[in-house]
């Protein structure tokens, strides 16, 4: 018999997969792939804070991560720093904070560790519906701004002359990344969440001939990896995070080989 736990995991995983699939294309093409890496460490600190204060960790880490995303943007724009240095700075800060909190309040160490590796099959119903809802909100925000996001990513100068407010869209994108990362943290964990957002888009780039195909393939690959990974994990009793990432890497390898053959 299929458990409701499994079905809920599939539902939330599916919503998140679509959000990651779309978002990943923009992150990769903007050379912002490592933003997920930085934000995941900030989100981890948020989780630690939430656990230390006995607040709902997801809600709390979304808030902390949104703040972190604004800091990354500010540093990129205003400090004399290349983007990747800004990210290195922030991810160290996030991890240092989490370690500090863990040493002060020793009782939640084990629970915090679960966010390193993630486990979608261990999440309670209320949290999983919240996650699905947030993923749908991210998805809607991207779809509503799709032409403008595409224009800006392809050609910032022309987009600006077309009247698009670049700074506003930049902020939107990094905030959507923040929310997505927090959700991804719960599913595959801090250590693998960058792969969740980036690998499907990278695979799509191997095969797509235009932008529409890229978005479609990236979503498809993301869905196949996450839903497939959750199913494998449930049936074979494997860690879901590893199953998801391995599936997406297999898809990437296939895509890469097909492109080389053409």
């Amino acid at each position, binding site marked *: 018999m299929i458990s409701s736990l499994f079905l809920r995991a599939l539902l939330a995983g599916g919503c998140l997969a679509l959000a990651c699939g779309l978002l990943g294309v923009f992150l990769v*093409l903007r050379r912002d792939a490592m933003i997920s890496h930085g934000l995941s460490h900030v989100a981890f600190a948020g989780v630690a804070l939430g656990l230390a204060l006995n607040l709902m960790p997801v809600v709390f880490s979304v808030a902390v991560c949104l703040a972190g995303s604004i800091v990354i943007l500010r540093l990129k724009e205003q400090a004399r720093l290349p983007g990747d240095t800004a990210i290195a700075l922030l991810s160290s800060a996030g991890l240092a904070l989490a370690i500090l909190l863990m040493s002060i309040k020793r009782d939640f160490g084990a629970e915090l560790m679960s966010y390193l590796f993630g486990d979608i099959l261990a999440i309670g119903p209320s949290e999983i519906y919240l996650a699905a809802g947030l993923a749908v909100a991210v998805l809607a925000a991207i779809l509503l701004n799709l032409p403008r996001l595409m*224009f800006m*990513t392809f050609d910032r100068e*022309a987009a600006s002359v*077309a*009247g698009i407010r670049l700074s506003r869209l930049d902020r939107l994108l990094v905030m959507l990344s923040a929310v997505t990362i927090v959700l991804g943290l719960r599913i595959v964990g801090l250590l693998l969440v960058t792969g969740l957002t980036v690998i499907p888009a990278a695979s799509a780039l191997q095969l797509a001939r*235009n*932008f*529409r195909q890229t978005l479609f393939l990236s979503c498809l690959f993301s869905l196949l990896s996450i839903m497939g990974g959750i199913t494998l994990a449930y049936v074979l009793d494997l860690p879901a995070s590893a199953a998801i990432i391995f599936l997406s890497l297999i898809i990437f390898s296939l895509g890469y080989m097909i492109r080389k053959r053409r």
Partner: protein
Amino acid sequence: MEEIVRVEGVSFAYDGLPALVDINLSIYRGDFLAIIGPNGSGKTTLLKIMVGLLKPRQGRVWLFQQPLETFNQWFRIGYIQQKATNFDPIFPISVAEVIAASLNSASRPAGAVRTPVRQKILEALQIVGLEQEADKPLNSLSGGQQQRVFIARALATDPEILLLDEPTTGVDYPSQENFYDLLGQLNKQKQLTIVLVTHDYGIVNRHVNRVACLNQKLVYHGEHSEFCQSDRFRQLLHGGHHLISHRH
């Protein structure tokens, strides 16, 4: 005559190094203005200031009689930046999608009739002779073809003024002539106002009605016909090349 662009007392510096000094310039509806000057004379900088990509350190700009800071009818303006073809070579985008991106995100005049996007795209591509390539990946086209795609993108929103920064770099000579003839035709038939930064003054001069020579300052600004009588033009034509090759 309707003033479309007004540049008043504009100066600009990059990190303290002056690039433009006290520029005053007006462009009227139907003008075909060529901006010429040596490398580094501030032509690109001036164009970027006109379209709001750079903020002047001093002075003001008006577009369609509105101060640039509050101007929002960007669909009236077409702009092709210098080296538009320096885009990310791994970016997966088809020719039609390049144009669709701009059509779908441009603000529109209130009450405008919407032609289907696909039809607009094909019309714009037809002008530059690329309607056959609509669904090809942009990075599979030659450099000159890509340049024409960007020209089509600028035309697709039916702008009233077109600002072009050395648009024919990398385009072969016959296509260049065709392109400038096309600009001349759009200028005469549709009253499209054109601002063209160029080093090929010899090829365009039969379409142009006004000239601006730039070298940080506006060295000359006026009618093309008078420009031809001037010493500067003779220098330009006869080997002197003072305007073309030296930085003062």
